[in-house]
């Protein structure tokens, strides 16, 4: 079986963490029911958070977190060299995620606020694709456990994974959720890529867009609806920017 020209038989996997909360990699250890099946399907050779084994012969690298320092850039490039397939995992890796909220301020102000005059080695927030070529983006904050397994099965079988192109609304309606937008809450479900099984609206919270835009998302019409419902520009902007998933869609960004 081949995917991207690479033959994979019980592929060797590395999981690497950069600047994030490590919630994405935790999802991997969290899928208890079939953890053993997963570990049978792939060989985990480098996964610092759960194992002291550290081998450098991985074929697929999963990256979580965003990239902020020069040493992270170097480490990421090294991983890219080794890995046949590199998967950016989660909103931080795919989009920069919530970390971008600090980009509203200058780097020196950011450091001063937390560490006063102390020297701290950091840089601007970059998503993984800003530094190296990314083969696959696995979205979400955090990633969805079933989707991770689904992706691994595809990689092992050598089938190209097709992520949903339609918006969260579709899954929401499939699950017969009551629409939170109709209940007066803000929801970005109409423009956000599905695949999370509409977990937020299911729990009576509007979607915050953590999975990034769906294909052919109609932002103008959603923003129009939100305005009509009485949400202020500021409120809309703050929600749209939270995960840095929709840069450039607001007039104020242009």
């Amino acid at each position, binding site marked *: 079986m081949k995917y991207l020209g690479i033959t994979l038989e019980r592929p060797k996997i590395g999981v690497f*963490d*950069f*600047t*994030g*909360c*490590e*919630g*994405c*990699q*935790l*999802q991997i*250890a*969290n899928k*208890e*029911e079939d*953890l*053993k099946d997963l*570990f049978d399907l792939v060989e*985990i050779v480098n*996964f*610092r*958070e*759960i*194992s*002291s*084994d*550290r081998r450098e012969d991985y074929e697929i690298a999963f990256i979580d977190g965003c990239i*902020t*320092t020069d040493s*992270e850039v170097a480490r990421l490039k090294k991983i890219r060299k080794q890995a046949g397939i590199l998967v950016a995992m989660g909103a931080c890796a795919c989009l920069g*995620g*919530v*970390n971008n*909220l*600090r980009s*509203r*301020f200058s780097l020196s*102000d*950011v*450091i001063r*606020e*937390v*560490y*006063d005059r*102390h020297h*701290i*080695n*950091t840089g601007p927030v970059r998503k993984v694709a800003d530094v190296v070529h990314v083969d696959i983006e696995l979205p979400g*904050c*955090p990633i969805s456990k079933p989707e991770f397994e689904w992706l691994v099965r595809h990689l092992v079988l050598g089938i190209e994974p097709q992520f949903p192109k339609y918006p969260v609304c579709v899954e929401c309606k499939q699950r017969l959720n009551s629409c939170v937008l109709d209940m007066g809450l803000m929801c970005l479900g109409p423009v956000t890529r599905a695949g999370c099984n509409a*977990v*937020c609206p*299911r*729990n*009576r*919270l509007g979607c*915050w867009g953590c999975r990034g835009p769906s294909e052919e998302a109609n932002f103008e019409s959603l923003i129009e609806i939100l305005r009509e419902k009485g949400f202020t520009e500021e*409120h809309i902007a*703050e929600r749209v920017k*939270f995960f840095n998933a929709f840069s450039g869609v607001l007039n104020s960004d242009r």
Partner: protein
Amino acid sequence: MTVKTVKSLNIDIKHLSRVEGHGDIRIRVEDGKLAECTWAVVETPRFFEVMFKGLSIEMAPILAARICGICSISHALASARAIERALKIEIPGPASMIRLLAKHAETLQSHSLHLFFLVAPDFLNVPSMIPIMHTNPQVAETAVKIKWFANRAADLLVGRSTHPIGIKIGGLTQIPRKMQLKELAKDLDATIPYLWKTLDLFKGFKMPDFVRETELVSLRGVNRYPFIGGDLISSDGVRKEEDEYRSMTNEYIVDFSNSKLTRLSRESFAVGALARFNNNYDLLHPKAKEAAEGLNLRPGVHNPYFYNLAQLVECFHVMYESKELLLELIDLDTSKFSIHYKVRRCEGIGAVEAPRGILYHYHRISDEGKIEKADCVIPTNQNNGNIYYDLHKLVNELIVQGMEGKEIERLSQMLVRAYDPCISCSVH
């Protein structure tokens, strides 16, 4: 008898494994003397205090959760509590019960992740849990059953175990149906036997012998073992109100670490399961006391490796207390689970006992309901200084005992791991 001391040694562990986040251990012995011994947090900061600035308060708990993938429920709760205390709002009773249950689910999930995936491999002499699945399938099964329950509970109670959805200012976004709570209670009953199996497993693990007396800081419970809010106490006799968290933690910055350190009455103090256990032993569930008995764990211990055992005792506490809470909720009118609030200029502090120790969030809010200033003090920040001093004492003792380099390395790693440091969290 000749005492064989280690003459020279160089241990340099980059990115210690089986802990959350990035930390390095450096130990250098020259001429039989300890020349360097550091526990350095090298995780890159994310600057959450800055990220909060200017956000609407409704977003604060959602952002706070992203500080840590393991204790996201604690962060969301502390942030929401800070805002609710600032606005002087009291959430409805059923909502606070569901929050406590979700907190318990997180404690169980985090402690069991630590005990099985991070700690047990050291005692079973394997690099990770993965080989254990084949060599000791019954141990793996026990781990899986407990973690499955913990995740299932969090999913039901607050939508998701990592980055909860249901916690909002004023209460909850929704409340589980009675039927679902009954099913959860059944699942809980089915999980309890696995806890006792875990106890048997850990009875067989001999914790290394090491003692360094230190100050232990935790919340102090009123009628209940503490998890959400309350007075701050220390084993050296300090007692303060929740609002005085700054003078309880006294953060300071050092050169070798990106995590700030803290102190109170001595050079360092410790928080977490062992601190809670020592300071609130009287409030533990009888079954948890029974488990402690079985492990020979009594209040007054100052062996940091016993953090592992105190965590296990807390697993018993949260499971048995969850059962009582569920039964109570099933008989309660749960129709009110959230209240409306008006924003105004104010500030507040929320303290909760996260799995690894006491966690504080502070928010100052503007008239428009925006976060003007945020501060958070993380459990692992508070433990980092203590780990540093423990490591010194441990390595010095091992040198004198003439312990081999490999063994010094192993015991040092196990020491740091026992604290279950959550490093991304501590740098935030």
